[in-house]
C-alpha cells in the first residue's frame, strides 16, 4: 500500500554503493527482495524511522501484533472486537472474538486469538526506542520540514494560509525524526526534508551514520531464527507471536505440530505458500540488514540447488521399491525426511527423484561397496500430488529412465547422489544378439544347458508373454484385476516395455524385479520374463489357477 514516497533521497547514490553487486544480483534473481533503502542514516533517515511507524496511528508500534495477513499494528490500534458469527468449530472460547482487518488489501475477519504479541517485532521496537528515543544531547540541531503533497498543496495554495510545518529538533536526523513521530507530528506517509543546523555539517552526517551502525548491529542480533541460527529468511510469525524462517517452519512442521518456542499447537498447514510473510519484519530486514540478508539468501539458494558443498550430489534418492520406465509408482509420503525431499524437488522445479530398492542382504554395490540401497534405480517424475493437512501426501509418479549411482552422501537425512543414466544397448547390438542366439542350434551340439526357448526369436519371446497374459486374463487371475490394469494400463505391445509392465502387475520377487532393472537388452529382458512364465506354468501343473510368486 505504501508507494515509497522518499523521492527527496533520489540523486544520492552513496547508499547502494556498498552492496556486493554479484550477491545482490543473485538475490534479485531469486525474486525475493528488491529494496535497498536504509544504508545511510543521513540520506535515508525518514525511510528508516518509517519502519517503526504504525500504519494506523503513525506512532511507533506499541505492543505490536502481527495479523494473519502479515501486517503489523499496535495493540491499541486493533479495531473494535465483535463476537464472530456462525462458527462452531473449533469453537474455542478464545477464538470467539474477531475484528475486521483494517488494512485495505486484506479486510478479512481475524480471530483475536491469532493476534498475540509479535515477540521479535516488539524487541526490535524496544531497540529503536533505546537508540533513538532517549537521546538527550542538545547538539546537532536539525530543521525538519514537511513536504506537502504537490496535488494537495496546489489545491490549498489559493488559501495561502496552509504553509509547510517545520520543527527544530536536536540529536541528528534519525533522532529528530523519531522524536517527531513519537510526538505524533508526522503521518506514516508524510515526507520531510532535513537540514542540519549544526555548525559543521559533516559532524551531523557522521553522527547519523554512527547511530545507524549501532541500530543495525543491535537489530541484526535480534532477528535470528531460533531454528537455523541465521537471519530470518522470509519470516513467518506464528499466531502465538514467534517468528521463524518460512523454510525452517516448514521443516519443523514435518516433525511436530507444535511451536518450537512455546509448544503451543500450530494450526498451520504443513506447506506454507499461502501463509503471509511478516511484512514489517521483512521491510526491516531488507532495509537494515540488506547485505547479511543477501549473503544468507545466496548461501541458502546454493545449498538448495546442490548438496551443500558437494556440488555433484544433485539427485535425491528415495529407497523404497522397484519402479520401471514408463510405469507409474504411487507413493504415500509420511517420513519427515521424504516430506522435505519431495517439497524441495517440487520447489526447485525438477519434480524428479531417483527410486531404488533397499539393499536388504548387504550385497556389494560396485564401486559403492556395501551401500544401503541397490545401485541401479529408476528416475521418477512427479505427475500429481495430494497433500493432507497434517503434512503427509500421496504422490503419483511415472518412471522416466534408469540410472546407476556413482557416488552418494546424506543431506538432511535423505540420500543424495551423483548418477549416470542407463540406456539399452544399441539396436545393432540387439540385432546381433538375436541373430547369434537364434542360430546357435546349428553351430552347437544339442546338449547345451540352456532351455530351447532361449533360442527363440525376440518376437516369439514377446508372443509367449502375450499369450500368457491372455490366458491368465481368461481365468481372471487376481493380478490382472481391473484396478491393476487401470493403474498400469493395458498390456503393451512394445517388446521393450512389456517386461516392465509384467513385472509391475505380476507378483514377482524383489531380486527378480531388480535383475530386470539392471538388464540393458530388450531380448534379455524378454528371456527373463519367459523364464518366469515357464516357472509359473510348471507350478500350475500342480496348483491350477492360483498365483505363483516366482
Amino acid at each position, binding site marked *: 500500500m505504501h508507494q515509497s514516497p522518499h523521492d527527496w533521497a533520489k540523486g544520492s547514490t552513496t547508499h547502494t554503493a556498498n552492496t556486493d553487486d554479484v550477491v545482490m544480483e543473485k538475490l534479485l534473481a531469486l525474486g525475493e527482495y528488491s529494496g535497498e533503502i536504509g544504508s545511510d542514516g543521513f540520506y535515508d533517515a525518514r525511510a528508516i524511522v518509517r519502519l517503526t511507524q504504525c500504519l494506523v496511528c503513525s506512532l511507533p508500534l506499541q505492543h505490536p501484533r502481527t495479523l494473519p495477513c502479515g501486517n503489523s499494528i499496535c495493540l491499541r490500534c486493533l479495531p473494535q472486537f465483535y463476537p464472530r458469527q456462525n462458527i462452531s468449530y473449533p469453537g474455542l472460547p478464545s477464538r470467539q472474538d474477531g475484528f475486521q482487518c483494517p488494512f485495505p488489501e486484506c479486510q478479512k475477519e481475524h480471530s483475536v486469538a491469532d493476534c498475540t504479541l509479535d515477540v521479535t517485532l516488539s524487541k526490535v521496537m524496544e531497540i529503536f526506542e533505546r537508540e533513538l528515543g532517549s537521546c538527550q544531547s542538545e547538539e546537532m540541531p536539525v530543521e525538519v520540514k514537511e513536504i506537502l503533497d504537490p496535488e494537495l498543496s496546489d489545491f490549498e495554495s489559493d488559501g495561502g494560509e496552509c504553509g509547510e510545518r517545520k520543527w527544530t529538533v536536536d540529536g541528528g536526523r534519525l533522532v529528530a525524526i523519531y522524536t517527531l513521530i513519537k510526538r505524533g507530528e508526522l503521518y506514516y506517509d508524510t515526507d520531510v526534508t532535513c537540514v542540519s543546523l549544526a555548525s559543521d555539517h559533516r559532524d551531523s552526517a557522521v553522527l547519523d551514520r554512527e547511530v545507524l551502525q549501532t541500530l543495525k548491529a543491535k537489530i541484526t542480533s535480534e532477528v535470528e531464527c*531460533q*531454528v*537455523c*541460527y*541465521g537471519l530470518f529468511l522470509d519470516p513467518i510469525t506464528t499466531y502465538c507471536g514467534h517468528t521463524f524462517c518460512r523454510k*525452517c517452519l516448514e*521443516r*519443523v512442521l*514435518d*516433525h*511436530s505440530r*507444535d511451536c*518450537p*518456542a512455546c*509448544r503451543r499447537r500450530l494450526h498451520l498447514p504443513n506447506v506454507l505458500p499461502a501463509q503471509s510473510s511478516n511484512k514489517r519484519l521483512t521491510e526491516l530486514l531488507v532495509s537494515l540488514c540488506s547485505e547479511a540478508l543477501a549473503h544468507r539468501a545466496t*548461501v541458502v539458494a546454493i545449498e538448495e540447488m546442490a*548438496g*551443500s*558443498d*558437494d556440488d555433484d550430489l544433485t539427485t535425491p534418492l528415495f529407497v523404497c521399491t522397484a519402479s520401471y520406465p514408463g510405469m507409474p509408482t504411487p507413493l504415500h509420503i509420511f517420513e*519427515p*525426511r521424504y516430506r522435505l525431499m519431495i517439497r524441495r524437488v517440487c520447489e526447485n522445479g525438477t519434480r524428479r527423484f531417483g527410486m531404488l530398492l533397499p539393499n536388504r542382504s548387504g550385497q556389494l554395490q560396485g564401486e559403492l561397496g556395501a551401500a544401503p540401497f541397490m545401485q541401479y534405480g529408476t528416475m521418477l517424475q512427479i505427475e500429481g500430488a495430494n497433500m493432507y493437512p497434517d503434512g503427509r501426501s500421496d504422490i503419483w509418479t511415472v518412471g522416466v529412465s534408469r540410472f546407476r549411482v556413482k557416488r552418494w*552422501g*546424506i*543431506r*538432511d*537425512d535423505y540420500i543424495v547422489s551423483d548418477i549416470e543414466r542407463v540406456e539399452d544397448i544399441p539396436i545393432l547390438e540387439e540385432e546381433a544378439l538375436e541373430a547369434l542366439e537364434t542360430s546357435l542350434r546349428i553351430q552347437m551340439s544339442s546338449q547345451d544347458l540352456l532351455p530351447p526357448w532361449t533360442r527363440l526369436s525376440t518376437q516369439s519371446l514377446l508372443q509367449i508373454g502375450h499369450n500368457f497374459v491372455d490366458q491368465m486374463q481368461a481365468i481372471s487371475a487376481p493380478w490382472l484385476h481391473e484396478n491393476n490394469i487401470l493403474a498400469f494400463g493395458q498390456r503393451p505391445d512394445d517388446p521393450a516395455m512389456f517386461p516392465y509392465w509384467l513385472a509391475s502387475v505380476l507378483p514377482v520377487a524383489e531380486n527378480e524385479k531388480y535383475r530386470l532393472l539392471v538388464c540393458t537388452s530388450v531380448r534379455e529382458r524378454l528371456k527373463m520374463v519367459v523364464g518366469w512364465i515357464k516357472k509359473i506354468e510348471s507350478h500350475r501343473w500342480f496348483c491350477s489357477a492360483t498365483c505363483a510368486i516366482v
Partner: protein
Amino acid sequence: MSLPKRIIKETERLVAEPVPGINAVPHDDNLRYFDVTIHGPAQSPYEGGIFRLELFLPEDYPMTPPKIRFLTKIYHPNIDKLGRICLDVLKGNWSPALQIRTILLSIQALLGAPNPDDPLANDVAQRWKEDEPAAIQTARDWTRTHAMV
C-alpha cells in the same frame, strides 16, 4: 557434507560462553560428535564427580534431538546401565529451539533432582523409593568409585 550453520554457531557459542560445570568439545574429525563432561551438582549424591558423556548430533538435527549417553557409570533412577537417559526433552518434548547447552543443563538438573516415579533403571528406582538414604549412599559410593579419577 558440510556442517549446517546452526551447528557451527552453537559450537562457537559453547566455547565463547561456557556453562559452569559443563564442558562440550567436538571431535576434530567429526564435528557432530562431542565429548561432554558434567560436574555433579552441589548438595547431590553426585557432588564432586565428573561424569563423561558422549553427544551426537544426528543428520536432521535440530529437527530431531541430539543423542546423548553417559559413559561414566552412574547410579541414578533415570539413567540405565548403558548410560541412556530418560528425559522428556530428549524424546517427544524436544523442540528445535532447544540446543546442546539447554539439554546439558537439563541433564545436570536431572542429577540434582532424580525422579524415581519415571524410572529407566527399574531396580535403582525401586531402591530409591524403598530406602532413599541407602540409595543415595550407593549413588555417592558409585560417584567416588567411577567419577572421581
